[in-house]
């Protein structure tokens, strides 16, 4: 492996001949015409793309040694202080150290098991060991040639920090004091060597068989909280949880660098990455960014150089078994003109404003999944189209989709910049949404995580909730509803239960029911009560919050606000406040109460109708009528009056105005409104016909009101429901009895 490292150096030297700036210029993302949103009503300006200042550049070499599942790496990272005060320390993520032993914070939180039921194997742990780390200031703007021997060695003073939970055993965050201070605008070059040992795959990164998912593999800098113009540190929106030291007043520089948690792992700065990956030449490699060079070596190794600007992470995969399929997204072919015109109309733009860029798609797929290749690619193209039309063009030139073997399922369904992992297991029948929905979801993260770099630790809903919500829209537009298919031992019971189709919104509701009020939608990822509450709130209640905002503000206002938020915060780190401001800016209304109740606190909406009665009022015959009252003519001349009464109950802790539709036997309807504040409100009506039902009006029905059974009552009992349940139970028990009979 030393020989191979020498070769790497040669490769690097040869590459140095080509001016790196040329390649960089070509790889710059293409941007949509700026200020297209200025045509929208309201003072909307775009600053996101124009304001971009590069904070980081990484120039790395990586050598994969398959036999020991080890990646040897080295290189240089240049970090520029974009803050307003001098900085005297650097904070790093060393996330493979989460897999060193079972005492890391990740292991304690996850209990050594991921959601796909794969267990940590203590005999195959993972780690990243930094073997050399030295720093030197870059003078002015000139990129001084790096001299490894003259840098200051940072290793003797390095410490491991546990800002989130004080766990001494956790080594996922490293602090390195600097012997000099980095003034605002000044840059520091850090050269490093490291050895990354991949764990046997059980959580996202690792190896199994000949499949290597190389993620969270290099020492990655944290994010310096950059002071805003007023001089106060810019913080994300979560509760005052100390991320890296107490939130002090004034201009103390503060690193936002969290430990690796079971629920969250992504927050870092945007930069320019160039990585030379060397693997045995019978491996396929997929990686972040575009491949700009390939060099074959005489010892059976090959080096692939990948490069990408404006991303905040770099991941790669090496696999000996998979097939590589190259395809593309071509906007002239893959964008539907009518759909584009419709989106443009909603956004108040012209179709020409919604230009999209071509994307090269590489699919690395297991041979036995070949039949699903088109489904992966079609889903990716649909996602590139819809996300691009709604929020802005996907600006990167490549997208790599990785389909791993079933034993690598713990690495599937993950997002990295321009690289996503899908996941499908045989048999994946059409119509059940696999691999389509995971492909669209992970692509969605390119927008809500990748391009908009919200803090997944402190405000995970901005990643997962937004992705869940927008994925559902793409899936509904492209596929309609997928079938809900129960499985027994991995075998789907389709086609027997193919009739059970759930809309994406129904799915949100069912999932939200699992934890309707245990936690807030906005909360640091590692502080949720349990994994179920995290999933229910961060993915599904968060998606319902967005649906509710869409309902309240209207489709067009909401769509414009989402686009504004996205474009304004591209390549930056927005918070929930920034999202709220975008909504308020476009809608012109304050959403403080909504965000306080539905986002920042564990509030839920539940209105119920109860005690519905309707009674004929004792009526007297009209005065003109005689005493005889037996004939039909006399009854028709009578005026029957009905007294209807019901109670609207507020069972949730969020109050909002509601309206109730009351239906009557003669087909007439009456609408009743209530401010929804007190616990209950009794409604009494007098009418000429008996009431048949009272139900929450569809238009006033909050998307957050996930309990629907109590949303309305009928005056007549619906016996068929009980009868249907009774006979279903009878049938099931009879089957049960006849099967028991076989045994006893």
């Amino acid at each position, binding site marked *: 492996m030393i020989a191979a490292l020498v070769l790497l150096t040669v490769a690097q030297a040869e590459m140095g001949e080509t001016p790196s700036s040329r390649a960089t210029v070509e790889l710059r993302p293409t941007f949509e015409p700026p200020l297209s949103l200025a045509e929208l009503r309201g003072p909307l300006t775009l600053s996101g793309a124009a304001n971009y200042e590069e904070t980081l550049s990484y120039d790395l070499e990586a050598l994969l040694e398959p036999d020991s599942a080890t990646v040897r790496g080295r290189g240089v990272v240049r970090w520029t202080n974009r803050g307003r005060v001098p900085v005297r320390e650097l904070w790093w993520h060393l996330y493979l150290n989460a897999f060193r032993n079972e005492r890391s914070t990740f292991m304690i939180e996850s209990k050594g098991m991921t959601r796909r*039921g*794969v267990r940590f194997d203590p005999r195959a742990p993972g780690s990243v060991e930094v073997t050399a780390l030295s720093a030197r200031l870059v003078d002015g703007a000139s990129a001084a040639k790096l001299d490894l021997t003259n840098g200051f060695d940072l290793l003797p003073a390095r410490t491991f920090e546990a800002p989130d939970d004080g766990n001494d055993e956790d080594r996922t965050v490293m602090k390195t004091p600097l012997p000099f201070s980095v003034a605002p605008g000044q840059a520091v070059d850090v050269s490093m060597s490291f050895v990354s040992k991949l764990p046997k795959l059980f959580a996202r990164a690792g190896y*199994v068989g*000949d*499949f290597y998912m190389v993620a969270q593999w290099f020492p990655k800098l944290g994010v310096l909280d950059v002071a805003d113009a007023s001089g106060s540190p810019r913080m994300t929106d979560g509760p005052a949880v100390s991320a890296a030291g107490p939130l002090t007043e004034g201009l103390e520089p503060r690193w936002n660098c969290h430990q690796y948690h079971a629920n969250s792992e992504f927050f870092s700065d945007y930069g320019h990455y160039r990585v030379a990956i060397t693997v045995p030449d019978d491996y396929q490699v997929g990686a972040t960014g575009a491949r700009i060079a390939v060099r074959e070596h005489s010892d059976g190794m090959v080096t692939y150089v990948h490069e990408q600007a404006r991303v905040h992470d770099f991941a790669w995969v090496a696999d000996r078994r998979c097939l590589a399929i190259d395809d593309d997204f071509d906007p002239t072919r893959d964008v539907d003109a009518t759909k584009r015109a419709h989106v443009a109309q909603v956004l108040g733009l012209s179709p020409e404003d919604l230009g999209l860029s071509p994307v090269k798609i590489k699919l690395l797929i*297991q*041979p*036995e*999944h070949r039949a699903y290749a088109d489904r992966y690619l079609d889903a990716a193209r649909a996602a590139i189209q819809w996300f691009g039309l709604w929020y802005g063009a996907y600006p990167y030139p490549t997208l790599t989709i990785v389909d791993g*073997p*079933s*034993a690598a399922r713990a690495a599937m369904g993950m997002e990295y910049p321009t690289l996503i992992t899908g996941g499908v297991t*045989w048999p994946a029948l059409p119509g059940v949404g696999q691999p389509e929905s995971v492909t669209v979801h992970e692509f969605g993260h390119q927008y809500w995580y990748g391009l908009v770099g919200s803090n997944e630790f402190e405000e995970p809903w901005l990643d997962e909730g937004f992705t869940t919500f927008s994925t559902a829209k793409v899936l509904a537009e492209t596929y309609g509803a997928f079938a*809900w298919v129960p499985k027994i*031992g*991995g075998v789907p019971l389709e086609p*027997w*239960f193919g*009739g*059970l189709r*759930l809309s994406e919104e*129904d799915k949100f*509701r*069912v999932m939200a*029911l*699992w934890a309707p009020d245990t936690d807030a939608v906005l909360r640091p990822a590692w502080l949720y009560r349990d994994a179920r509450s995290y999933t229910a709130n961060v993915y599904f209640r968060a998606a319902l919050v967005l649906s509710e905002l869409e309902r309240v503000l209207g489709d067009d206002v909401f769509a414009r606000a989402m686009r504004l938020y996205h474009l304004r915060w591209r390549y930056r780190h927005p918070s929930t406040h920034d999202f709220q401001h975008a909504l308020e800016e476009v809608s012109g209304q304050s959403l403080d109460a909504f965000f306080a109740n539905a986002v920042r606190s564990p509030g839920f909406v539940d209105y119920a109708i109860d005690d519905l009665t309707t009674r004929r009022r004792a009526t007297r015959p009209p005065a003109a009528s005689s005493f005889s009252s037996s004939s039909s003519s006399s009854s028709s001349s009578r005026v029957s009056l009905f007294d209807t009464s019901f109670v609207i109950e507020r069972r949730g802790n969020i109050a909002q105005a509601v309206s109730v539709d009351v239906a009557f036997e003669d087909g007439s309807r009456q609408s009743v409104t209530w401010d929804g504040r007190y616990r209950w409100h009794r409604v009494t009506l007098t009418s000429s016909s008996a009431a048949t*039902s009272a139900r929450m009006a569809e238009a006033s029905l909050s998307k957050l009101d*996930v309990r*629907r*059974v*109590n*949303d*309305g*009552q*009928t005056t007549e*009992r*619906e016996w*068929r*429901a*009980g*009868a*249907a*349940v*009774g*006979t*279903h*139970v*009878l*049938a099931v*028990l*009879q*089957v*049960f*009895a*006849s*099967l*028991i*009979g*076989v045994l*006893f």
Partner: protein
Amino acid sequence: MGPSAAESLAAGLGWTLSSPGPAIWVVVVQAILVLPWAFGAGWLADDLFGRSVEAARFARSIDVVLVAELFKTQALGFHTWLVTLAGAGLVFVATSTFLTGGLIATAGAPRPSARFFFAEGGRALPRLLRLLGLSIPFFGLVVMLPGVVILRAADSWAEDALSDGVGMALRVSSVLLVATIAALTLAAIDAMKIQRVRKPDVRLWRVFRHGLAFAWTSPIRTLVLYLPYPCLLLGLVVAWAWVDVRIGRSGWALWALGLAWQQLGAVVRGLLRSAWVASLVFHGWPEGHGHEATLDTEAANMKSET
């Protein structure tokens, strides 16, 4: 030599079709047994959402979203159902044993009367219950315990398998293996039941050994004889359920159609079970062919040891 497996299977079906009485009585008793639970569930459902505007939708078809909501918000937890079903299970076991006794005793009898069926079931019940005391631990030891080990091992191998095909093959073959062990063991236990009912004076321990010898000395023959009916039964349950979930219950006519379909399913299952038991009885269990001598010798040896 006794009859072949095919002859026995056909004879079992033939007898059941000519004397469907016992099968029908089995179905009737089972239906009476589960009716209170069905009524209870219906009333509970009616109480929970009989007046909800969602009720009509629920009557049309099973609505998974509503089911989920009821379970999550009405404290209809999994454990409530577990306790209810466990209680029901005990009653089912006792009743099933009684009915099996009746089926075995009447198998082969030309047009057995109801009185005969129930009297024989009652007579056999204590003897079969004592057999249960032996056969349940035996089943646990021979099928459940190794079954769990085999299925879990296969599952963890399958999870580590690099291709879906290998994983699927591992899973399917482990299920087939456990099913085979279960079938052979159940066949042995059925042989014991038959001897328990038809030869009341043979002692329990000897019956046990006898059943084992018959089922396990020639496993292929046992499987050929034993498996066709349960496979047919399972296939029919699946096909029946496929139709059943597609019958809406939105009107009384559809509701009645659904109920009729359910009862038809129950009757067909009853007939299959009857034919199955009868085919085993016809095959000569426990009268056997030639093994008895060996067993008698063994039994004699054991006696002399004690």
